[in-house]
């Protein structure tokens, strides 16, 4: 039956994460962006909420409640607080989701328990490549057979690189198609260069250069038909949800500002030019959110999600950019300053055009 109400359990989770985002994440958003630094202690606090662990199989110490929809709800709330911090908090999903979906039982046994321990351990996933027109489904990074293992060569960028992680999952094209490889951050031939972007400044990211990086056969995730495609889809749903969170953050600031700011003797929100813009922002946010939920629901119900994910992801990133821009506009000159949130939202929102695997559901 058509229904748009999250389950009671999901509502509880959303309420918890929303409070955390409001009380802990948002107050740090600006200073973290300015300092290009994550609040390390906060990541550990967030880890205690078990947001990623709850989705990991019980056999490996997780909560066993995997749901892309719940993941989307959580991602939106955290990204509403701050996109960089949200991506860092959820970064273990970058390892747990591909491993849960694609790895052998032995690999899961080896890798998953580390993600549900007491200590926060970030994950990293390298899907984006720096060349023009890059397609995450056909990586130019190559994986060649090398004895019993593999040798990887290629370039990656926009790789989240939160301190404290020890591995990164790298996509590469092998003999049988695209595949993921678990590579130690310290591996020989792997060079990680810190990168700076217009947005997500608080999130450490690197460009990776792989030159004859050796990977043991045990560290290759089994090639699965559409395996990488499913990882990309799970990333796009997460990013779609995060885009909605960013848009909502910008919209709410603009709405509240418009009710406070007076011009010509009245709050500017009482002028239709502003009020209608805000109405359109609210409509577009709600509409795109429903598309993202529908895409997540496709994943959860094991339907072919490709088209729904593609449409939702495109729409959400478009809306995030348009709404953030409109929010800057509503605030006028103040919107252009770093004193207010919309300028940060605008810089972050543009990134969704190139983020892949910033987080996974």
């Amino acid at each position, binding site marked *: 039956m058509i229904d748009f109400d999250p389950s009671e359990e*999901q509502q509880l989770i959303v309420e918890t994460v929303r409070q955390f985002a409001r009380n802990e994440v948002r107050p740090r958003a600006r200073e973290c962006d300015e300092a290009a630094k994550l609040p390390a202690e906060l990541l550990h606090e967030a880890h205690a909420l078990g947001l990623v662990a709850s989705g990991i199989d019980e056999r490996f110490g997780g909560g066993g409640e995997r749901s892309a929809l719940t993941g989307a709800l959580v991602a939106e709330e955290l990204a509403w607080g701050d996109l960089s911090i949200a991506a860092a908090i959820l970064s273990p999903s970058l390892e747990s989701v591909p491993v849960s979906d694609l790895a052998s039982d032995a690999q899961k046994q080896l890798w998953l328990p580390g993600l549900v321990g007491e200590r926060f351990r970030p994950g990293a996933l390298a899907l984006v490549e720096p060349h023009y027109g890059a397609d995450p489904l056909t990586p130019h990074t190559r994986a060649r057979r090398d004895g019993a293992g593999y040798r990887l060569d290629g370039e990656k960028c926009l790789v989240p690189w939160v301190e404290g992680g020890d591995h990164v999952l790298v996509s590469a094209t092998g003999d049988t198609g695209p595949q993921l490889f678990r590579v130690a951050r310290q591996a020989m031939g792997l060079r990680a260069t810190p990168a700076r972007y217009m947005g997500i400044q608080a999130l450490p990211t690197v460009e990776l250069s792989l030159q004859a990086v050796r990977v043991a056969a045990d560290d290759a995730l089994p090639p699965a038909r559409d395996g990488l495609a499913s990882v990309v889809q799970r990333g796009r749903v997460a990013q779609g949800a995060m885009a909605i969170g960013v848009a909502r953050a910008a919209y709410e600031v603009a709405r509240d500002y418009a009710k406070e700011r007076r011009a010509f003797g009245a709050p500017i929100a009482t002028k239709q030019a502003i009020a209608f813009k805000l109405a359109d922002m609210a409509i577009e946010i709600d509409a795109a959110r429903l598309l993202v939920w529908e895409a997540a629901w496709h994943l959860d119900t094991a339907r072919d999600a490709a088209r729904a994910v593609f449409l939702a992801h495109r729409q959400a990133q478009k809306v995030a950019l348009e709404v953030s821009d409109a929010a800057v506009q509503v605030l006028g000159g103040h919107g252009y300053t770093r004193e207010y949130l919309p300028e940060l939202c605008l810089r972050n929102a543009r990134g969704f055009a190139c983020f892949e695997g910033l987080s996974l559901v």
Partner: protein
Amino acid sequence: MAIDFELTRNAQVARAHYRDMASAHMRPFSREYDDREHELPTPWVDWFWKHGRGGAPDTDLSQPGDGMVQVCVQAEELCWGDAGLYLRIPSAALGGSAVAAAGTPAQKERFLSAFRGDGPPVWGAMAITEPQAGSDSAAIQTTAVRDGDEYVLDGTKIFCTSGEGASQHEGGFVVVWATVDKSAGRGGIKAFVVPAKTPGMRLVGTEKKLGIRASDTATLVLEKCRVPAANLLGSATVKKDDAKQTGDKGFKGAMATFDASRPIVAAMAVGVGRASLDFLREELTRNGVKIRYDAPAAALGAVERDVIDMEAELQAARLLTWRAAALISRGRPNNLEASMAKAKAGLVVTRITQKAVELLGPAGYSKKLLVEKWMRDAKINDIYEGTQQINQLIVARRILEYSSSVLR
């Protein structure tokens, strides 16, 4: 409950049923009754009256349907068939909604039974808009004066959908909105059921329109038109103008009808938009243009981009529509959501149908196909049941928590 995007089995059965009906019994008449504006599409009307009423035959009544969402699915399918013919369906339509929402059991029996009967086809209609009062429906000038056991109505109503059917065919009725006390503002506005052929109610013409030409859009003049006092819907008491008044079925009643009808209108819009988009995609396939849902943005062609955006926007409008409808089914307020859906759907299908004409070139522009007609039909959805701008205004008031006197 939990988030779910799958229609119930019954709703799926209904969707298939109405899709077949649209293909077999509406599309074949689309062009003909677009050309023959103002003519009653008798073959369609008679077929529907005999065979179209009563829902899908395969419905399992022991199983749940999707409530108002299912009504929206039906509207989408039939407007995918033809929006003009859909509006000409013999039914109580918006007049029926008003009677159902505000009428007493006796009034419902009196006015609605003909729509279930075996007599000739009947229509209902709602008459609010006047030459000087469109979006600002509180400004209506039509008066109702109590005279013994009757009210006497005087005024002019325009843009009355199915006004010809409802006023000229025995058994039908028009719900006329009129003020019993101009000094009371909105509080003085009441709804009266005026049965077809009541002396003093005169059909003076029907509009020549851009689209939905199979639908009659009437101008009705009321001159010393007498109806029994028992035809008043809701309370006769006049409360002085106060936006917060509750329990009154006058102006507030009219506005509440919109909360229920706007999702349906949004669904109708989605139906027309889908007609265009379905056809466009078939044409592209025939011409070897493939739409890729897994290509990087930089590799997408211009037409692919257009089609993908049209699909996303249409689905966005449909989901907003279903959300507004699902709230009704659960007995929850949906004023904000209904206006969001209507504003979005009206705009989206206007753009989609215009883009389809553009992409198909001379074929899209030609009257040999229906693409040009869908573009003309689609535009009304951006206007009636509250223009896009009125719905933006409602959304804005809600999100800003402003009254109509603060955000005018």
